């Protein structure tokens, strides 16, 4: 049993969780949703265990010189991304006592793991000198908590738009099983503020790290620029909500645009030259 195998299994467990959540929502079966929660918890435990194993394995090769926290390339970051999504989702589910959200959130975690398992190199590679810093851990963890919160706010916004569009018709379908519009709005806002705080800290830790590694805290590297664009989009969303009292659909659309910016920051930037290019496939 090695970490790659375990994480491949976890991919399918996430798939099962997503499937159960969707089934519970469509067929309105509470038992399925409860099962989905437990499957998600199992997947999260497996996910974290897989990362721990990978961390341990990295010390077993190259006379221990490879040893590093599993947060250094696209594969490792996707695995971590899935774990943060699942973790934050479980907290939200517990706090808001609603299990339908999983139908929209867990597929994202599954897609992350699937992409990690099938679309990327999962060989443990040694760290290049620039990445050898404790700031790596702080920077990656905060960024991905931010990204995960944005991913969930994206899922919630999708439900909101879905519900908003079909609310009046067909009250008897699975849609009535969805949380109330007020709760969805509240959740979007909570997740965006949480994500915004962590994105801010993530950008800041990155800047401090860059300053200690290269001597400048900001170099307009494409990833930096795109994370700033993402930050601007969410800052606009917050201003629109706080200062102008926007809500509902418009906030939902902004949150979706914001998540698109997150995705481009995460994946798209790899096609542009820059310091973060080790994030590529």
């Amino acid at each position, binding site marked *: 049993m090695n970490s790659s195998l375990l994480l491949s299994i976890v991919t399918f467990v996430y798939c099962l969780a997503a499937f159960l959540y969707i089934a519970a929502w469509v067929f309105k079966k509470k038992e399925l949703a409860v099962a989905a929660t437990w499957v998600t918890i199992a997947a999260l435990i497996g996910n974290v265990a897989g990362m721990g194993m990978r961390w341990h394995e990295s010390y077993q090769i190259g006379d221990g010189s490879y040893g590093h926290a599993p947060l250094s390339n696209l594969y490792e970051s996707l695995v971590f991304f899935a774990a943060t999504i699942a973790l934050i989702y479980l907290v939200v589910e517990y706090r808001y006592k609603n299990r339908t959200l999983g139908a929209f959130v867990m597929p994202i975690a599954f897609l992350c793991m699937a992409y990690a398992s099938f679309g990327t190199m999962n060989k443990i590679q040694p760290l290049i000198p*620039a990445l*050898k810093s404790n700031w790596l851990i702080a920077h990656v963890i905060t960024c991905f908590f931010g990204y995960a919160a944005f991913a969930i706010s994206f899922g919630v916004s999708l439900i909101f738009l879905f519900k908003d569009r079909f609310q009046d018709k067909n009250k008897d379908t699975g849609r009535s099983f969805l949380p109330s519009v007020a709760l969805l709005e509240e959740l979007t806002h909570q997740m965006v*503020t949480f994500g915004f705080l962590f994105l801010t800290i993530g950008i800041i830790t990155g800047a401090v790290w860059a*300053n200690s590694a290269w*001597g400048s805290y*900001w170099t307009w590297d494409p990833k930096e*620029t*795109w994370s700033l664009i993402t930050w601007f989009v969410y800052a606009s969303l917050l201003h629109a909500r706080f*200062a102008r009292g926007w809500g509902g659909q418009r906030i939902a659309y902004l949150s979706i645009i914001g998540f698109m910016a997150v995705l481009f920051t995460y994946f798209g930037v790899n096609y542009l030259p820059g310091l973060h290019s080790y994030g590529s496939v």
Partner: protein
Amino acid sequence: MLSLAVTSIIGTIVPQNGNPAAYKQQYGEVFYNLFNRLGIFDMYHCWWFQVMLIMLTLNITVCSIQRLSKTWKIIFPTQLSFNRSRFQKRANREEFQNQGALEQLRKEYESFLNQQIGHSIVERTKKGFCVFAEKMRWTRLGVYFVHLSVILLLLGGLIGSLFGFNGSVNIAEGEAADAIWVRNSHEKRQLPFTIRCDDFDVSFYDTGAPREFRSTLTLLENGEPVLTENIIVNDPLRYKGINMFQASYGQLPPEAPKIDPDMEVSLNLLSRESGMQYQRKTKIGQVVELPEGKGKFVIKEFQPSLEFGNMKLGETFIGLLTPSQGEETKVILPVKYARFDTMRKGAIVISITNDAEDFHAGHDHTVRYYTGLQVNSDPGVWVVYAGFLIMIIGCYITFFMSHQQVCIEVIKSGKNNRVFISGITNKNKLSMQNKIKKLAQSLKHVSKQEEL
């Protein structure tokens, strides 16, 4: 209320202004790649971008000050007061009934709110009383902290670009530099000290990827060494406000070995005609009279590693033979191949009798590296760091802390008292609702204990 609304609209100018900046950057990305290839790196420092940053700063400043000056009195009133009717309209209002003397309840509720929320004030009404308490009124300032931090960041960046510098220098092992090349320009900048690279090491993983590069640097002031330290990537050296970062490294081209021009070269001269061998000693540039009147020979130069066709001849002398009759001929004399000159089929076969090692003097076979250092100074960095800190704290306050006001109203109706409790908050209404529910529960508990 109206003024608040108006100031809110002014406040929204900020994101509207932020967005064009973001979009311009977005369009800028494409150009950035293009410019990158064209060698123009400076688009983020070009005038329209700078103007936009200044506009953003001005906007945040003006809007914040305007808003703050209008809301300051609301945030920090000279006298704490509350409006009962606002609490009566709250959706989170909870109601229950109990019995007991009003005066007794007032004391209990007052101390209850003092304990749970903060300093409370009491207002007597026609049929009962109200107890009001609030906490964390100051958190309404959180958003201004965030705006302040943005201004600090931009200010720090400005200070850095005005008073700081950023450049790089390559120093070969054993050599020193006291000036750097300023980034994106062809200017040299003098440093207040000299950097000497004592040593450079690079280690590799078994994959061939670099694992670590390390420079041992000594700083000299007026020729006197003041500091020696190792630097690696992510661990720079800082001295007198100037930072030296390990940025890159490279190999020096193999150095031409310095052989002593006065070095003695021993020649063996074989005459084909007589079969006689003659020994001569010479130097580079010194003319040798060939025996048996065959002409003159002079060594012109030394090549540390000559290639002849596909052959690597190694240390080789190149000379010029001027026979008594006929044309001048170039003569190649590899130190390691004494019979090489027989191929020329000349009257005299020349060879060198020195050992090849004799010409290794000064030839260092180990690879020589140079270290690439990034050298900079940024006096604005502490302003930026202060901005970072305030931004994180400000965001936390803005998003997760709220001004909470709670009011308990008691109305005497017949034998019973009707107790209402409700709360107002500027953020996170849901958690306020839960809080009011909990407070109502414990309030009931307080009263029941009293009844027993």
